[in-house]
């Protein structure tokens, strides 16, 4: 037997989970480079860190996916962030501990973490 509040909680939770089945063009996309170079450089824990942090904050407007080598193997692990209507931002030489800052500042507050971008590294 569930109370109305419990049903509401289930609805909210499931909505968050099922949100990604909608054809939603307004979503922010995070794409992690997961070719051999990326994985060797540690892209896997970075990917996991993104997923954990997004889940922790309950973000619904973000999709995370993987991609192959984008050509800057020396700067791996690489992740690109696509905010609709804005230019894509490429973060390089990522470590899991850098991820919460990107999620908080860029995905939530829409301010690019300049220090981690490819521009800062080059």
């Amino acid at each position, binding site marked *: 037997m569930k109370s109305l509040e419990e*049903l509401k909680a289930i609805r909210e939770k499931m909505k968050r989970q*099922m949100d990604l089945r909608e054809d939603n063009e307004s979503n922010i996309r995070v794409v992690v480079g997961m070719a051999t170079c990326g994985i060797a450089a540690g892209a896997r824990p970075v990917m*996991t860190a*993104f997923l954990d942090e997004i*889940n922790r904050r309950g973000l619904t407007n973000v999709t995370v*996916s*993987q*991609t192959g080598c984008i050509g800057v193997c020396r700067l791996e692990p690489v992740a690109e962030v696509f905010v609709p209507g804005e230019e894509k931002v490429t973060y390089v030489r990522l470590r899991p501990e850098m991820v919460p800052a990107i999620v908080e500042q860029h995905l939530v507050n829409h301010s690019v973490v300049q220090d981690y971008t490819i521009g800062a590294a080059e």
Partner: protein
Amino acid sequence: MSHIRSHIMVCTGTGCTSSDSPRLISAFEDELKLEGMDQEVRVVKTGCFGLCAMGPIVMVFPEGACYTRVTVDDVHEIVSEHIVKGRIVKRLLHMEGEEGQSVTSLNETQFYKHQLRIALRNCGVINPESIDEYIGVDGYTALERILTEKTPPQEIIDALKKSGLRGRGGAGFPTGNKWQFTYDAVSPDGVKYVCCNADEGDPGAFMDRSVLEGDPFSVIEAMTIAGYAIGSSQGYIYIRAEYPIAVKRLELAIKQAEEYGLLGDDILGSGFSFHLELRLGAGAFVCGEETALMTSIEGHRGEPRPRPPFPAVKGLFGKPTLLNNVETYANITWILNNGWEKFAAIGTEKSKGTKVFALGGKITNTGLVEVPMGTTLRTIIEDIGGGIPNGKKFKAAQTGGPSGGCIPAELIDTPIDYDSLTAIGSMMGSGGLIVMDEDNCMVDIAKFFLEFCVDESCGKCVPCRIGTKRLYDLLCKITDGKGTLEDLDTIEELCHHLKDSALCALGQSAPNPVLSTLKYFRDEYVAHVVEKRCPAGVCRNLTRYIIDPGKCKGCTLCARNCPVNAISGAVKAPHVIDQNKCIHCGLCQTNCRFDAISKS
């Protein structure tokens, strides 16, 4: 738990299940585990997407990539390419159009572009075995609202009346009125029943099955609301035992709803109780008729009885009973959640909303489609259905199964709604839509549906029991080449007698396929009778196999295969078929390697 970044939706409707989709699910799960991604990618069972011809269907989100005809061997590639590297496997994408253009988003396809999914809104979107997912798509909000606000039943019934929803089982009776009659009916001991007709029996129809397989909760929620609205605490779903997946999902859904307190005693603490039980039908077509269905639920042999009294007054166990079809129920919560105005804005003047059709026969995209009322047959067949395969010409479409009629090619621009179809001698029916091309003999089609009715007639009334059989005999006479022109008149006369005197809709509508083919394809009947010829080359006894002496090499293969030794000829000399001995089996034609044998 980590954030799930991708959902792999695998269709587990009957169509895709029969092409092995359950094995795909375990293959995906194994492969994901192997890649260490089982914590971030979820494999979800779901209902019918509609593109049954291309099954098994797999949709991968968030990209929304639609993969068709996926086999277990493709699973590794989808996981290692799409899931691991983010590269869509183009080879498996749904292809459409002459250029063979592949499409990633289903909504862009011709197949979906013209569709509007209301009854099928959750099919292919949610996991039908999870009440949580149904709740996640705003399921049970209508029931919650009604019970917490204590909405007056009359308000619910008025909303349905104003929406213009009509029964989707075929007859098209206004649903709101039906609810009103049952609400108004007085039961001395206060007992009323809510029933759901899931005894889908038309050959080639699978709309209700797909709704129950893909979204069982929407029917259960609607029946619960119906119970509240008419004042009933007990419901029955009458479903045929031939639908094992639908039965299993319904049982599971009822159990989950009971565990959540959304079914049973004192729902959501409101004091309102509603119980739901399944009753399995043994597959008799007549049990889709409402009075026969209720007799069968009572435990008796499924036979109809005269109406009135209508079920709303005296139905199941003699109590006032509300009986609606699966698809009708599937529309209810959508109307209550989105408002009757929105529903009434869809469709034509007298037919509101959408209708689900099961497309079958000679059509490229066999499958399940839902279109607004008033959509033309042309849109359904040419745009959504992808036209007739093998470059053949469209000849006719049969709607309404054995109770409906044929729509000939010249009426292809007829808008599909209750009244337009009745006006041209067909009927909406439950939604089976069988497409026929130039290779179909219309007399043979009429005979096929009539044979079905002969088998399925329950035998209670004489007109149906004997009338359908005599009609069938007359049609056989024609396809055997022994018919006369007077027989055509007798057929017509008998059809009208049957329509006027049969006890229930089965017998009353059984002559429809005959009458409509006679009306639109009389020349074909005449060809059978006068010229002793079947224009489509279907009727066996009217076809002659002929060997072309120019092409025959005298290999003797046909003569050796002929079961009645009707072929003679010397080795390396052209052979001849003795038409008096020939039984028209066609074996000679199948075996000939030189394409020398043709039908005339």
